[in-house]
């Protein structure tokens, strides 16, 4: 009886040791997108590097009519999405949820937000400015940008988000409501449906994991 008890206790102790060692702190986010390899010669030896999918350089105009480029997001983690100001369907919910993330990380210089308007006809900088103010965005941490049609729709492809002009869609544009998490090397580390409470909760968790990695 006593021996049994000792065996039982030691198994319990051992298992708790393993559980304690595989804590959350070791969790890493995946790197999303296609990858290729590249061979290099270093000190006479051939080394194979993995080239991950990255957001290419870009240049857009923000709500203050100032140029915003990929350089503004260097060494930062940021969340990108696609919306338009008079979107009647999914955008308000998506922006409501992103606002919660913004409010949590307000004044944290490691984290930024980038909302692209896909309505290049209507959403001029002044419209975006008024939208941002009414939403409750009071600093430069969250940028709202517009640009040439082909640039905006082209960059959406790079974020792996579907966007399309579509007369049959509510408001005239069809798009996905992903909040895309980008790391300091411009790699996609996660995409979360901005209209789903569970996925937004996951974004909160993953953002913490990513910040620890930086």
């Amino acid at each position: 009886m006593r021996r049994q008890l000792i065996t039982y206790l030691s198994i319990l102790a051992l298992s708790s040791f393993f559980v304690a060692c595989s804590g959350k702190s070791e969790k890493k986010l995946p790197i999303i997108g296609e990858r290729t390899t590249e061979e290099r010669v270093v000190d006479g030896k051939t080394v194979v590097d993995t080239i991950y999918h990255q957001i290419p350089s870009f240049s857009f105009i923000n709500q203050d009519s100032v140029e915003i480029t990929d350089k503004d997001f260097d060494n930062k983690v940021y969340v990108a999405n696609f919306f338009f100001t008079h979107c009647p369907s999914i955008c308000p919910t998506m922006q409501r949820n992103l606002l919660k993330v913004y409010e949590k990380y307000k004044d944290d210089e490691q984290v930024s937000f980038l909302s692209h308007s896909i309505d290049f006809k209507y959403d001029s900088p002044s419209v975006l400015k008024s939208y941002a103010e009414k939403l409750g965005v009071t600093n430069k941490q969250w940028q709202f940008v517009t640009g040439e049609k082909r640039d905006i729709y082209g960059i959406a492809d790079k974020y792996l988000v579907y966007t399309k002009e579509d007369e049959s869609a509510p408001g005239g544009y069809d798009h996905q409501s992903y909040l895309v998490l980008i790391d300091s090397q411009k790699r996609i580390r996660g995409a979360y449906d901005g209209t789903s409470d569970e996925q937004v909760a996951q974004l909160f968790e993953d953002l913490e994991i990513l910040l620890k990695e930086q």
Partner: protein
Amino acid sequence: MRNTICSLTAISILIGMLIFSCQPNVSIKTAQYAVNGQKLYVTHCQSCHGLKGEGLGMLYPPLTDSAYLAENREKLACIVKNGMTGSVKIHGKIYKGEMPGNNELTNIDIAYILTYITTTFGNDVETYTQEKVKNSLANCRM
């Protein structure tokens, strides 16, 4: 045996109290309208006005100003159906913007939605009837 009866009675009284105390102060009809209205609210209104009618920043006004709901009760169906432009004062703040109309909604849908909004976010206890919707739409001046 007697004990069993006693405890059964006590339990049923407790359950009864629970059920009745949880019932809001509205008729069965109003409650049915509100339940149907909730589903429609999620589809047509919630994205902008929020799960609890809280609105979003200064973009979309909350639906929780019971004084506004009471004063403008006659106009509500017209607003839901045809949308709204210009400014509106809610909880003392001025909201400017454009609300799109919901032309596809039928009178009974609007009655469901407004019963849900006025009894859940406002403090109304009465059904927003189809007749009210009809009258409101007939007197629409937007």
